[in-house]
């Protein structure tokens, strides 16, 4: 059996005296869809920032397919096959949709920092870019400046850039935040299709999304994982119910 796609071991992060992540250990198997839920301020985004290299962990280790990545820079981690999206749309605003996605495919196709090639003549880049755009359904908006897209389309572009490089492990930070019901449904279909065969780690507030999409769920509360299990196990877990007490709507959705 090969190493887990992603393995966190006793991961901790302090900002000065504030302990944000307090000893998180988690194994995510290859091809698994794993959701992280938890109340606001539980440290979900910080956890993503640690895994993707934006912050170095205070202690503990992170391994990507058996290779330790904690302490590496974000671009190095990305090159090893881990790609993430952002909670707030984080795109190249002044470039067209096509150029946005193209930026995402360049490194993976080995074009690095080359300055002796005309980007328009790189057939492989054009093809891969077109494939990604087709896959997420943005082909007809390919030449629109990213800043002019609707909110939902910007979120879609965010996912498109994230999957463009062909990473095996995808981290999505609240991909459906701020979307309407129909937009959320479309986004879920897109995520399912785009991450097929890949390992997915997702932070999400919409419990309908979480319970429909995930193979396993971890509940993060005050920087600690209080439970990990299948959706059924999490639904029945007393500690999870306790953590979510007071938030009736979410509780109801979970139990539904």
């Amino acid at each position, binding site marked *: 059996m090969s190493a887990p796609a992603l393995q966190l071991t006793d991961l901790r992060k302090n900002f000065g005296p504030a302990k944000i992540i307090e000893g998180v250990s988690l194994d995510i198997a290859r091809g698994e869809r794993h959701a992280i839920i938890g109340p606001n301020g539980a440290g979900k985004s910080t956890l993503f920032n640690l895994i*993707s*290299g*934006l912050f170095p962990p205070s202690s503990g280790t992170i391994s990507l397919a058996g290779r330790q990545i904690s302490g590496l*820079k*974000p*671009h190095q981690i*990305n*090159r090893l096959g881990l*790609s*993430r999206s*952002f909670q707030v749309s*984080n*795109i*190249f*605003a*002044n*470039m067209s949709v*096509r*150029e946005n996605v*193209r*930026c*995402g495919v*360049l*490194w*993976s196709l080995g*074009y*690095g*920092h*080359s*300055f*002796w*090639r*005309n*980007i*328009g003549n*790189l057939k492989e880049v*054009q*093809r891969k*870019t*077109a*494939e990604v*755009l*087709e*896959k997420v359904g943005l*082909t007809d908006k*390919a*030449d629109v400046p990213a800043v002019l897209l609707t909110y939902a389309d910007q979120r879609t572009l965010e996912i498109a*850039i*994230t999957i*463009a*490089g062909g990473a095996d492990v995808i981290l999505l930070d609240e991909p459906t935040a701020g979307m309407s019901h129909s937009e959320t449904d479309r986004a879920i279909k897109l995520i399912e*299709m785009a991450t*097929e*065969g890949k390992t997915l780690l997702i932070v999400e507030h919409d419990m309908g999304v979480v319970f429909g999409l995930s193979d396993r769920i971890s509940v993060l509360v005050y920087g600690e994982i209080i439970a990990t299990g299948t959706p059924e196990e999490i639904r029945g877990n007393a500690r999870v119910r306790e953590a979510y007490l007071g938030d009736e709507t979410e509780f109801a959705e979970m139990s539904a």
Partner: protein
Amino acid sequence: MTDYSLDRVPDLAPSVRYKFATRVLPLLLLALILLSIPLFEPSRTWLSLFNAIGINMVFALSYNMLLGQAGMLSFGHAVYFGLGGYAAMHGMNAIENASYDGGLWAAFPMFALPLVGFAGGALAGAVIGWPSCRRAGVPFAMISLGIAELVAAAGFMFISVFGGEEGITGDRMNGVELFGLSLGPLGEVYWFIAFWTFLGVALMYAFTRTPLGKLAQAVRDNPERVQFVGYNPNRVRYLVFIAAGGFAGLAGGMSAVNYEIFTPESLSVIPSGLVLLMAFIGGARYFAGPILGAVVLTYMQSNLSDYSEAWLLYLGLLFIGMILFAPGGLAGLLLSGTTALRQSLSGKGLVRAGAFAISALLSATGVIVLVELAVRHSNGFGEAFEPFSFHLAPDQMMPWAVGLVLAGVGIGSLKVLSRQGGMGS
């Protein structure tokens, strides 16, 4: 390969016609202009102006590789222009010495000296950029300013390299001749400048079309995101910085051959500021912006000083006016002007453009009247400002009032117009 199959991947590349019209045609147009200028048999004054414009075009475009393409604000770009120029000057003298004593340099044509400038500028960029490109934004700008002061000060200290205050002089009429050009007469220097201007512009345009050029734009837009598509933004900035230094050095090499002298002044923050003005006034968001800026500012620099001793003041006012009212610069104004013309069937665009032009003219007239009156007043010679046979004396109230009203009305209407949706943005 891919874990999904698509029947047909659409070809999203722009049409051949579009590519030709937006990429090849402008360059052909530039070549045509450069080739046709000598047909008008310009005077020596005009020729030296054209040569200066060519040099500044390359310099301003190299600056915009940083500012417009990669979002790096530098206050010390003349360092690379100057160091490249000095490298070329030393090359020029090496060619001259080798023409007496022999040696490798004897085979180096004077015409190719800008290549030495490029190498010098790129090397300087590689050395200085190594520490300074580890920071972006304000720290990068401050470091660039510090380095400009440092290098300019060093220029006055190391006399054997920079020649002290008198600088280094040379003679371009030595060594191997290329294309049958002795580079003696100004007309032959024009062909030299035209050749390198075209090559510099074309290469810098090509750079924007490469993976590195595109990544530079991505770094400008969103350096954080670039990290998560596998690129180190500092690395991208550093490589762009070297390239920009190289092209600034190319312009320095052109300048070395054109003027046959380089002084430490050319390394200082003054030319660094001027190139920043060219890029901003021309329009840093557009590739062609700095070209326009170089044309207008070089013209102003050489001709406006004949008309008014306050020309630097006008330059400053133009800069502020552009930043406030037309952040897209001259290129942005031209672009929205042509768009307005195209939509002029509705009339609205044309009226707007007309209103803008009239307000700009009013405010410019008012400001000029005020500035000229002020200059004459402070000189104390009792001289009057007499444009178009008007007589405006600084010791009377009326001319001042006229100036104030013109400027007030002009600037006021500009503000109203730009509030209704900016121009050239």
